[in-house]
Protein backbone atom coordinates (compact mmCIF):
# COMPACT_ATOMS: atom_id res chain seq x y z
CA UNK A 1 0.00 0.00 0.00
CA UNK A 2 1.52 3.30 -1.08
CA UNK A 3 0.76 6.01 1.46
CA UNK A 4 -0.09 8.62 -1.11
CA UNK A 5 -3.52 10.16 -0.43
CA UNK A 6 -5.88 10.42 -3.40
CA UNK A 7 -8.83 11.80 -1.43
CA UNK A 8 -8.50 13.97 1.66
CA UNK A 9 -11.58 15.22 3.47
CA UNK A 10 -10.94 17.52 6.41
CA UNK A 11 -13.41 18.94 8.94
CA UNK A 12 -16.40 18.64 6.64
CA UNK A 13 -19.73 20.12 7.70
CA UNK A 14 -23.04 19.88 5.86
CA UNK A 15 -26.50 20.77 7.09
CA UNK A 16 -29.99 20.75 5.61
CA UNK A 17 -31.88 23.47 7.45
CA UNK A 18 -31.53 22.72 11.15
CA UNK A 19 -30.42 19.13 10.53
CA UNK A 20 -26.65 18.67 10.59
CA UNK A 21 -25.76 15.65 8.46
CA UNK A 22 -21.95 15.87 8.43
CA UNK A 23 -20.31 17.21 11.53
CA UNK A 24 -16.52 17.62 11.41
CA UNK A 25 -16.06 14.58 9.20
CA UNK A 26 -12.55 13.46 8.16
CA UNK A 27 -11.44 10.82 5.69
CA UNK A 28 -8.30 9.93 3.77
CA UNK A 29 -8.23 7.42 0.94
CA UNK A 30 -4.76 6.21 -0.07
CA UNK A 31 -3.60 5.08 -3.48
CA UNK A 32 -4.56 1.48 -4.27
CA UNK A 33 -6.65 1.15 -1.13
CA UNK A 34 -10.18 -0.21 -0.70
CA UNK A 35 -11.77 1.95 1.97
CA UNK A 36 -15.24 1.00 3.19
CA UNK A 37 -17.45 3.66 4.72
CA UNK A 38 -20.24 2.18 6.79
CA UNK A 39 -23.14 3.90 8.43
CA UNK A 40 -26.84 3.56 9.09
CA UNK A 41 -29.39 4.57 6.47
CA UNK A 42 -29.79 8.33 6.52
CA UNK A 43 -26.45 8.85 8.24
CA UNK A 44 -25.14 11.05 5.42
CA UNK A 45 -23.06 8.57 3.39
CA UNK A 46 -24.65 9.52 0.09
CA UNK A 47 -24.46 13.22 0.96
CA UNK A 48 -20.74 12.78 1.60
CA UNK A 49 -20.03 11.24 -1.79
CA UNK A 50 -22.18 13.83 -3.54
CA UNK A 51 -20.03 16.52 -1.88
CA UNK A 52 -16.96 14.58 -2.92
CA UNK A 53 -17.75 14.71 -6.64
CA UNK A 54 -19.14 18.24 -6.57
CA UNK A 55 -22.79 17.29 -6.99
CA UNK A 56 -23.60 19.04 -3.74
CA UNK A 57 -22.02 22.03 -1.99
CA UNK A 58 -20.79 21.64 1.55
CA UNK A 59 -20.93 24.25 4.30
CA UNK A 60 -17.42 24.13 5.74
CA UNK A 61 -14.22 22.11 5.48
CA UNK A 62 -12.11 20.98 2.57
CA UNK A 63 -12.09 18.16 0.05
CA UNK A 64 -8.99 17.39 -1.97
CA UNK A 65 -9.21 14.90 -4.80
CA UNK A 66 -5.94 13.93 -6.49
CA UNK A 67 -4.37 16.99 -4.87
CA UNK A 68 -7.00 19.45 -6.11
CA UNK A 69 -9.26 21.33 -3.73
CA UNK A 70 -12.66 20.84 -5.35
CA UNK A 71 -14.20 23.94 -3.80
CA UNK A 72 -11.56 26.17 -5.39
CA UNK A 73 -11.40 24.94 -8.96
CA UNK A 74 -13.16 26.10 -12.12
CA UNK A 75 -16.05 24.10 -13.57
CA UNK A 76 -13.90 22.99 -16.52
CA UNK A 77 -11.21 21.72 -14.11
CA UNK A 78 -13.85 19.92 -12.07
CA UNK A 79 -15.19 18.26 -15.23
CA UNK A 80 -11.65 17.21 -16.10
CA UNK A 81 -11.10 15.87 -12.59
CA UNK A 82 -14.35 13.92 -12.77
CA UNK A 83 -12.95 11.85 -15.63
CA UNK A 84 -10.47 10.43 -13.10
CA UNK A 85 -13.32 9.33 -10.84
CA UNK A 86 -15.60 6.43 -11.66
CA UNK A 87 -18.94 6.47 -9.87
CA UNK A 88 -21.21 3.48 -9.42
CA UNK A 89 -24.65 4.70 -8.42
CA UNK A 90 -26.90 2.76 -6.08
CA UNK A 91 -29.61 2.48 -8.72
CA UNK A 92 -27.07 1.99 -11.56
CA UNK A 93 -28.30 5.21 -13.28
CA UNK A 94 -27.90 3.84 -16.80
CA UNK A 95 -29.27 6.20 -19.45
CA UNK A 96 -32.50 4.40 -20.26
CA UNK A 97 -32.99 5.98 -23.69
CA UNK A 98 -29.65 4.54 -24.85
CA UNK A 99 -28.51 0.99 -25.54
CA UNK A 100 -25.75 -0.59 -23.46
CA UNK A 101 -23.27 0.26 -26.23
CA UNK A 102 -24.36 3.92 -26.28
CA UNK A 103 -24.19 4.09 -22.49
CA UNK A 104 -20.59 2.95 -22.59
CA UNK A 105 -19.69 5.09 -25.60
CA UNK A 106 -21.12 8.24 -24.00
CA UNK A 107 -18.12 9.13 -21.76
CA UNK A 108 -15.64 8.00 -24.42
CA UNK A 109 -17.09 10.21 -27.14
CA UNK A 110 -17.08 13.21 -24.85
CA UNK A 111 -13.62 12.90 -23.35
CA UNK A 112 -11.46 10.93 -25.79
CA UNK A 113 -10.84 11.50 -29.46
CA UNK A 114 -10.52 7.83 -30.29
CA UNK A 115 -11.30 6.40 -33.71
CA UNK A 116 -14.55 4.48 -34.20
CA UNK A 117 -12.69 1.15 -34.15
CA UNK A 118 -10.84 2.01 -30.95
CA UNK A 119 -14.06 3.17 -29.26
CA UNK A 120 -15.74 -0.07 -30.30
CA UNK A 121 -12.83 -2.10 -28.97
CA UNK A 122 -12.88 -0.27 -25.62
CA UNK A 123 -16.62 -0.82 -25.23
CA UNK A 124 -16.19 -4.52 -25.98
CA UNK A 125 -13.28 -4.77 -23.54
CA UNK A 126 -15.31 -3.07 -20.79
CA UNK A 127 -18.18 -5.49 -21.35
CA UNK A 128 -15.79 -8.48 -21.33
CA UNK A 129 -14.44 -7.25 -17.98
CA UNK A 130 -17.90 -7.44 -16.44
CA UNK A 131 -18.78 -10.67 -18.24
CA UNK A 132 -21.66 -9.30 -20.30
CA UNK A 133 -20.50 -8.97 -23.92
CA UNK A 134 -23.83 -10.35 -25.20
CA UNK A 135 -25.82 -7.39 -23.85
CA UNK A 136 -24.17 -4.80 -26.08
CA UNK A 137 -27.25 -3.95 -28.14
CA UNK A 138 -29.85 -4.33 -25.39
CA UNK A 139 -31.66 -1.50 -23.64
CA UNK A 140 -31.16 -1.11 -19.87
CA UNK A 141 -34.82 -1.99 -19.27
CA UNK A 142 -34.17 -5.42 -20.79
CA UNK A 143 -31.51 -6.25 -18.17
CA UNK A 144 -31.87 -7.63 -14.65
CA UNK A 145 -30.84 -5.52 -11.63
CA UNK A 146 -27.53 -7.38 -11.29
CA UNK A 147 -26.76 -6.99 -15.00
CA UNK A 148 -27.56 -3.28 -14.84
CA UNK A 149 -25.16 -2.91 -11.91
CA UNK A 150 -22.40 -4.67 -13.91
CA UNK A 151 -23.00 -2.48 -16.96
CA UNK A 152 -22.91 0.59 -14.72
CA UNK A 153 -19.60 -0.66 -13.37
CA UNK A 154 -18.31 -1.09 -16.92
CA UNK A 155 -19.36 2.49 -17.69
CA UNK A 156 -17.68 3.77 -14.52
CA UNK A 157 -14.46 2.04 -15.58
CA UNK A 158 -14.40 2.88 -19.24
CA UNK A 159 -12.29 6.02 -18.87
CA UNK A 160 -9.84 4.06 -16.70
CA UNK A 161 -10.34 6.25 -13.62
CA UNK A 162 -7.84 6.47 -10.78
CA UNK A 163 -10.57 6.39 -8.13
CA UNK A 164 -13.85 4.50 -8.06
CA UNK A 165 -16.68 5.40 -5.72
CA UNK A 166 -19.24 2.69 -5.10
CA UNK A 167 -22.56 3.80 -3.61
CA UNK A 168 -24.18 0.75 -2.02
CA UNK A 169 -22.94 -1.65 -4.73
CA UNK A 170 -24.80 -4.71 -3.42
CA UNK A 171 -28.03 -3.12 -2.19
CA UNK A 172 -31.16 -4.62 -3.72
CA UNK A 173 -29.35 -7.64 -5.14
CA UNK A 174 -29.80 -11.29 -4.16
CA UNK A 175 -26.87 -12.80 -2.16
CA UNK A 176 -25.42 -14.69 -5.15
CA UNK A 177 -25.46 -11.66 -7.46
CA UNK A 178 -24.11 -9.51 -4.61
CA UNK A 179 -21.15 -11.91 -4.25
CA UNK A 180 -20.56 -11.77 -8.01
CA UNK A 181 -20.47 -7.97 -7.87
CA UNK A 182 -18.02 -8.03 -4.93
CA UNK A 183 -15.78 -10.46 -6.82
CA UNK A 184 -15.93 -8.23 -9.86
CA UNK A 185 -14.97 -5.18 -7.79
CA UNK A 186 -11.96 -7.06 -6.42
CA UNK A 187 -10.87 -8.20 -9.87
CA UNK A 188 -11.16 -4.67 -11.19
CA UNK A 189 -9.13 -3.32 -8.30
CA UNK A 190 -6.39 -5.87 -9.04
CA UNK A 191 -6.42 -5.30 -12.78
CA UNK A 192 -6.46 -1.50 -12.84
CA UNK A 193 -4.89 -0.74 -9.41
CA UNK A 194 -7.62 1.77 -8.66
CA UNK A 195 -8.34 3.30 -5.26
CA UNK A 196 -11.87 2.57 -4.12
CA UNK A 197 -14.24 4.23 -1.71
CA UNK A 198 -17.09 1.85 -0.99
CA UNK A 199 -20.22 3.10 0.74
CA UNK A 200 -22.18 0.19 2.12
CA UNK A 201 -24.05 -1.27 5.04
CA UNK A 202 -23.48 -4.81 3.80
CA UNK A 203 -21.14 -6.39 6.37
CA UNK A 204 -20.25 -9.29 4.05
CA UNK A 205 -19.20 -6.88 1.36
CA UNK A 206 -17.10 -4.90 3.84
CA UNK A 207 -15.44 -8.06 5.20
CA UNK A 208 -14.38 -9.32 1.80
CA UNK A 209 -13.33 -6.13 0.10
CA UNK A 210 -12.05 -3.67 2.72
CA UNK A 211 -8.44 -2.87 3.53
CA UNK A 212 -9.68 -0.31 6.02
CA UNK A 213 -13.06 0.82 7.30
CA UNK A 214 -14.59 4.00 8.69
CA UNK A 215 -17.84 4.09 10.63
CA UNK A 216 -19.97 7.16 10.06
CA UNK A 217 -22.01 7.95 13.17
CA UNK A 218 -23.75 11.20 14.04
CA UNK A 219 -22.08 12.86 11.06
CA UNK A 220 -18.58 12.05 12.31
CA UNK A 221 -15.89 9.53 11.42
CA UNK A 222 -16.61 7.64 14.62
CA UNK A 223 -13.88 5.04 14.29
CA UNK A 224 -11.36 3.77 11.73
CA UNK A 225 -9.62 0.42 11.49
CA UNK A 226 -9.50 -2.92 9.72
CA UNK A 227 -12.61 -5.07 9.51
CA UNK A 228 -11.35 -7.38 12.26
CA UNK A 229 -10.49 -4.51 14.59
CA UNK A 230 -13.97 -3.07 14.24
CA UNK A 231 -15.75 -6.43 14.35
CA UNK A 232 -14.04 -7.32 17.64
CA UNK A 233 -14.74 -3.96 19.26
CA UNK A 234 -16.68 -3.93 22.51
CA UNK A 235 -18.22 -0.51 21.82
CA UNK A 236 -22.02 -1.09 21.67
CA UNK A 237 -22.44 1.45 18.87
CA UNK A 238 -19.91 -0.46 16.74
CA UNK A 239 -21.19 -3.87 17.77
CA UNK A 240 -24.66 -2.91 16.48
CA UNK A 241 -23.28 -2.93 12.91
CA UNK A 242 -21.78 -6.41 13.12
CA UNK A 243 -24.70 -8.27 14.71
Amino acid at each position, binding site marked *: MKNQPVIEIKNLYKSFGQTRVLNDFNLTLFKGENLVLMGKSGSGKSVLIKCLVGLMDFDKGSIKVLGKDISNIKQSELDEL*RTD*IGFLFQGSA*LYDSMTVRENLEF*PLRRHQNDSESKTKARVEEALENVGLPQTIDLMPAELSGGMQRRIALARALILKPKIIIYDEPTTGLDPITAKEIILLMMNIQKKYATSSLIITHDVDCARVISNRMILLLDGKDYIQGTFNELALSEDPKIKAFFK
Partner: protein
Amino acid sequence: MKFLSSHQSGFISFFNEIGDMGNFTGRYFRELFSKPFEFREFLNQCYQMGNKSLLLVGVTGFILGLVFTLQSRPTLMEFGAVSWMPSMISISIVREIGPVIIALICAGRIGSSIGAELGSMKVTEQIDAMEVSGTNPFKYLVVTRILAATCMLPLLVIIGDFVALVGSAIIENAKGDVSFTLYFNQVFEALEFTDLIPATLKTFFFGFAIGLVGCFKGYNSNKGTAGVGKASNSAVVFTSMLLFVLDFIAVFITDIFYS
Protein backbone atom coordinates in the same frame (compact mmCIF):
# COMPACT_ATOMS: atom_id res chain seq x y z
CA MET B 1 -58.18 32.26 8.19
CA LYS B 2 -57.08 28.82 7.04
CA PHE B 3 -58.53 29.56 3.60
CA LEU B 4 -56.61 32.84 3.43
CA SER B 5 -53.32 31.35 4.59
CA SER B 6 -53.54 28.46 2.14
CA HIS B 7 -54.15 30.94 -0.69
CA GLN B 8 -51.31 33.11 0.56
CA SER B 9 -48.86 30.20 0.51
CA GLY B 10 -50.19 29.26 -2.93
CA PHE B 11 -49.39 32.76 -4.20
CA ILE B 12 -45.95 32.70 -2.63
CA SER B 13 -45.08 29.35 -4.15
CA PHE B 14 -46.43 30.53 -7.53
CA PHE B 15 -44.17 33.58 -7.51
CA ASN B 16 -41.25 31.50 -6.24
CA GLU B 17 -41.76 29.21 -9.20
CA ILE B 18 -41.89 32.17 -11.59
CA GLY B 19 -38.61 33.40 -10.08
CA ASP B 20 -37.01 29.95 -10.45
CA MET B 21 -38.20 29.80 -14.03
CA GLY B 22 -36.65 33.22 -14.65
CA ASN B 23 -33.31 31.93 -13.36
CA PHE B 24 -33.69 28.79 -15.45
CA THR B 25 -34.35 30.91 -18.57
CA GLY B 26 -31.31 33.07 -17.79
CA ARG B 27 -29.14 29.99 -17.45
CA TYR B 28 -30.52 28.68 -20.77
CA PHE B 29 -29.37 31.80 -22.62
CA ARG B 30 -25.97 31.76 -20.91
CA GLU B 31 -25.40 28.11 -21.79
CA LEU B 32 -26.81 28.54 -25.32
CA PHE B 33 -24.00 30.88 -26.28
CA SER B 34 -21.16 29.05 -24.54
CA LYS B 35 -19.09 26.20 -25.97
CA PRO B 36 -19.30 23.27 -26.60
CA PHE B 37 -22.51 23.11 -28.62
CA GLU B 38 -24.25 19.74 -28.50
CA PHE B 39 -25.10 19.69 -32.21
CA ARG B 40 -25.62 15.93 -32.48
CA GLU B 41 -28.10 15.86 -29.61
CA PHE B 42 -29.83 18.96 -30.99
CA LEU B 43 -30.39 17.18 -34.32
CA ASN B 44 -31.61 14.09 -32.49
CA GLN B 45 -34.13 16.20 -30.57
CA CYS B 46 -35.26 17.93 -33.79
CA TYR B 47 -35.94 14.48 -35.21
CA GLN B 48 -37.75 13.31 -32.07
CA MET B 49 -39.91 16.42 -31.84
CA GLY B 50 -40.37 17.25 -35.50
CA ASN B 51 -40.57 14.00 -37.38
CA LYS B 52 -42.34 12.07 -34.66
CA SER B 53 -45.02 14.77 -34.21
CA LEU B 54 -45.72 14.99 -37.93
CA LEU B 55 -48.50 12.39 -38.09
CA LEU B 56 -50.31 13.87 -35.10
CA VAL B 57 -50.04 17.40 -36.46
CA GLY B 58 -51.10 16.24 -39.93
CA VAL B 59 -54.20 14.40 -38.70
CA THR B 60 -55.16 17.26 -36.37
CA GLY B 61 -54.69 19.85 -39.10
CA PHE B 62 -56.66 17.83 -41.64
CA ILE B 63 -59.63 17.31 -39.30
CA LEU B 64 -59.46 20.95 -38.25
CA GLY B 65 -59.78 22.03 -41.90
CA LEU B 66 -62.64 19.60 -42.55
CA VAL B 67 -64.64 20.50 -39.45
CA PHE B 68 -64.07 24.23 -39.69
CA THR B 69 -65.30 24.29 -43.29
CA LEU B 70 -68.30 22.06 -42.56
CA GLN B 71 -69.34 24.20 -39.60
CA SER B 72 -68.90 27.54 -41.41
CA ARG B 73 -70.61 26.52 -44.65
CA PRO B 74 -74.30 26.78 -43.57
CA THR B 75 -73.80 30.24 -42.01
CA LEU B 76 -71.99 31.62 -45.04
CA MET B 77 -74.66 30.11 -47.34
CA GLU B 78 -77.34 31.88 -45.32
CA PHE B 79 -75.71 35.22 -46.15
CA GLY B 80 -74.91 34.24 -49.72
CA ALA B 81 -71.20 34.57 -48.94
CA VAL B 82 -70.05 31.02 -49.56
CA SER B 83 -67.58 32.23 -52.17
CA TRP B 84 -65.68 33.87 -49.28
CA MET B 85 -65.03 30.48 -47.76
CA PRO B 86 -61.38 30.00 -48.93
CA SER B 87 -60.42 33.52 -47.81
CA MET B 88 -62.11 33.21 -44.45
CA ILE B 89 -60.78 29.75 -43.71
CA SER B 90 -57.22 30.55 -44.79
CA ILE B 91 -57.00 33.78 -42.79
CA SER B 92 -58.47 32.19 -39.65
CA ILE B 93 -56.28 29.12 -39.87
CA VAL B 94 -53.03 30.86 -40.75
CA ARG B 95 -53.42 33.78 -38.37
CA GLU B 96 -54.85 32.15 -35.31
CA ILE B 97 -56.44 28.72 -35.20
CA GLY B 98 -53.59 26.77 -36.81
CA PRO B 99 -50.77 28.11 -34.59
CA VAL B 100 -52.78 27.88 -31.37
CA ILE B 101 -54.30 24.42 -31.94
CA ILE B 102 -51.04 22.91 -33.19
CA ALA B 103 -49.08 24.52 -30.34
CA LEU B 104 -51.57 23.04 -27.87
CA ILE B 105 -51.25 19.61 -29.50
CA CYS B 106 -47.46 19.93 -29.31
CA ALA B 107 -47.64 21.05 -25.67
CA GLY B 108 -49.33 17.71 -25.01
CA ARG B 109 -47.03 15.66 -27.20
CA ILE B 110 -43.66 17.38 -26.73
CA GLY B 111 -44.03 19.22 -23.39
CA SER B 112 -45.28 16.19 -21.47
CA SER B 113 -42.67 13.94 -23.05
CA ILE B 114 -39.83 16.30 -22.08
CA GLY B 115 -41.24 16.70 -18.56
CA ALA B 116 -41.57 12.95 -18.05
CA GLU B 117 -38.21 12.10 -19.60
CA LEU B 118 -36.17 14.63 -17.63
CA GLY B 119 -38.19 13.96 -14.47
CA SER B 120 -37.48 10.27 -14.71
CA MET B 121 -33.80 10.95 -15.43
CA LYS B 122 -33.67 13.16 -12.35
CA VAL B 123 -35.24 10.67 -9.93
CA THR B 124 -33.15 7.76 -11.20
CA GLU B 125 -29.94 9.81 -10.83
CA GLN B 126 -29.21 9.71 -14.58
CA ILE B 127 -28.69 13.49 -14.56
CA ASP B 128 -26.22 13.13 -11.67
CA ALA B 129 -24.48 10.32 -13.55
CA MET B 130 -24.10 12.59 -16.57
CA GLU B 131 -22.66 15.38 -14.44
CA VAL B 132 -20.26 13.02 -12.67
CA SER B 133 -19.01 11.82 -16.05
CA GLY B 134 -17.88 15.39 -16.77
CA THR B 135 -20.78 16.35 -19.05
CA ASN B 136 -22.85 19.46 -18.43
CA PRO B 137 -26.38 17.96 -18.23
CA PHE B 138 -28.06 21.36 -18.57
CA LYS B 139 -26.36 21.94 -21.88
CA TYR B 140 -26.84 18.39 -23.12
CA LEU B 141 -30.44 17.87 -22.02
CA VAL B 142 -32.05 21.28 -21.57
CA VAL B 143 -30.44 23.60 -24.13
CA THR B 144 -30.82 21.09 -26.96
CA ARG B 145 -34.47 20.37 -26.17
CA ILE B 146 -35.56 24.00 -25.82
CA LEU B 147 -33.74 24.97 -29.01
CA ALA B 148 -35.17 22.02 -30.93
CA ALA B 149 -38.72 22.85 -29.79
CA THR B 150 -38.20 26.50 -30.78
CA CYS B 151 -37.02 25.51 -34.25
CA MET B 152 -39.47 22.67 -34.90
CA LEU B 153 -42.76 24.26 -33.86
CA PRO B 154 -42.87 26.84 -36.69
CA LEU B 155 -42.26 24.05 -39.22
CA LEU B 156 -44.97 21.88 -37.68
CA VAL B 157 -47.41 24.81 -37.71
CA ILE B 158 -46.70 25.57 -41.38
CA ILE B 159 -47.27 21.91 -42.28
CA GLY B 160 -50.38 21.74 -40.08
CA ASP B 161 -51.81 24.91 -41.66
CA PHE B 162 -51.24 23.55 -45.15
CA VAL B 163 -52.88 20.21 -44.33
CA ALA B 164 -55.85 22.04 -42.76
CA LEU B 165 -56.29 24.03 -45.99
CA VAL B 166 -56.15 20.79 -47.98
CA GLY B 167 -58.91 19.38 -45.72
CA SER B 168 -60.97 22.49 -46.24
CA ALA B 169 -60.41 22.32 -50.03
CA ILE B 170 -61.64 18.71 -50.08
CA ILE B 171 -64.93 19.73 -48.42
CA GLU B 172 -65.33 22.69 -50.76
CA ASN B 173 -64.63 20.44 -53.71
CA ALA B 174 -67.15 17.85 -52.56
CA LYS B 175 -69.91 20.18 -51.37
CA GLY B 176 -69.45 23.35 -53.40
CA ASP B 177 -67.91 22.01 -56.59
CA VAL B 178 -64.92 24.31 -56.17
CA SER B 179 -61.76 23.01 -57.86
CA PHE B 180 -58.51 22.75 -55.89
CA THR B 181 -56.87 25.29 -58.22
CA LEU B 182 -59.62 27.82 -57.70
CA TYR B 183 -59.63 27.20 -53.95
CA PHE B 184 -55.90 27.72 -53.56
CA ASN B 185 -55.92 30.71 -55.94
CA GLN B 186 -58.41 32.38 -53.62
CA VAL B 187 -56.37 31.34 -50.57
CA PHE B 188 -53.21 32.97 -51.93
CA GLU B 189 -55.12 36.05 -53.02
CA ALA B 190 -56.53 36.47 -49.52
CA LEU B 191 -53.30 35.86 -47.61
CA GLU B 192 -50.75 38.64 -47.23
CA PHE B 193 -47.33 38.79 -45.63
CA THR B 194 -48.91 40.69 -42.74
CA ASP B 195 -50.88 37.51 -42.03
CA LEU B 196 -47.99 35.11 -42.44
CA ILE B 197 -45.08 36.86 -40.72
CA PRO B 198 -46.57 37.67 -37.28
CA ALA B 199 -48.30 34.27 -37.20
CA THR B 200 -45.03 32.48 -37.94
CA LEU B 201 -43.00 34.64 -35.57
CA LYS B 202 -45.25 33.86 -32.64
CA THR B 203 -44.81 30.12 -33.19
CA PHE B 204 -41.11 30.48 -32.32
CA PHE B 205 -42.19 31.83 -28.94
CA PHE B 206 -44.76 29.03 -28.60
CA GLY B 207 -42.04 26.45 -29.28
CA PHE B 208 -39.70 28.13 -26.82
CA ALA B 209 -42.44 28.11 -24.15
CA ILE B 210 -43.19 24.41 -24.72
CA GLY B 211 -39.52 23.44 -24.46
CA LEU B 212 -38.79 25.74 -21.53
CA VAL B 213 -41.70 24.69 -19.33
CA GLY B 214 -41.23 20.97 -20.11
CA CYS B 215 -37.53 21.15 -19.28
CA PHE B 216 -38.06 23.30 -16.18
CA LYS B 217 -40.69 20.98 -14.73
CA GLY B 218 -38.75 17.82 -15.56
CA TYR B 219 -35.31 19.06 -14.52
CA ASN B 220 -36.62 20.26 -11.17
CA SER B 221 -38.90 17.36 -10.41
CA ASN B 222 -38.54 15.50 -7.14
CA LYS B 223 -40.51 13.25 -4.81
CA GLY B 224 -39.87 10.04 -6.75
CA THR B 225 -42.09 8.56 -9.43
CA ALA B 226 -45.10 10.61 -8.30
CA GLY B 227 -42.98 13.69 -9.03
CA VAL B 228 -42.41 12.47 -12.61
CA GLY B 229 -46.16 12.27 -13.25
CA LYS B 230 -46.64 15.67 -11.67
CA ALA B 231 -43.83 17.17 -13.76
CA SER B 232 -45.33 15.82 -16.96
CA ASN B 233 -48.85 16.91 -16.07
CA SER B 234 -47.95 20.38 -14.86
CA ALA B 235 -45.75 20.92 -17.91
CA VAL B 236 -48.82 20.51 -20.14
CA VAL B 237 -51.15 22.58 -17.95
CA PHE B 238 -48.70 25.44 -17.43
CA THR B 239 -47.63 25.50 -21.10
CA SER B 240 -51.24 25.55 -22.31
CA MET B 241 -51.98 28.59 -20.15
CA LEU B 242 -48.76 30.26 -21.19
CA LEU B 243 -49.56 29.71 -24.87
CA PHE B 244 -52.80 31.69 -24.55
CA VAL B 245 -51.01 34.50 -22.72
CA LEU B 246 -48.30 34.60 -25.40
CA ASP B 247 -50.94 34.50 -28.12
CA PHE B 248 -52.74 37.46 -26.59
CA ILE B 249 -49.47 39.43 -26.38
CA ALA B 250 -48.59 38.53 -29.98
CA VAL B 251 -52.03 39.57 -31.28
CA PHE B 252 -51.87 42.77 -29.26
CA ILE B 253 -48.45 43.71 -30.67
CA THR B 254 -49.47 42.76 -34.21
CA ASP B 255 -52.53 44.92 -33.86
CA ILE B 256 -50.40 47.92 -32.84
CA PHE B 257 -48.07 47.49 -35.83
CA TYR B 258 -50.56 46.61 -38.56
CA SER B 259 -53.77 48.42 -37.64
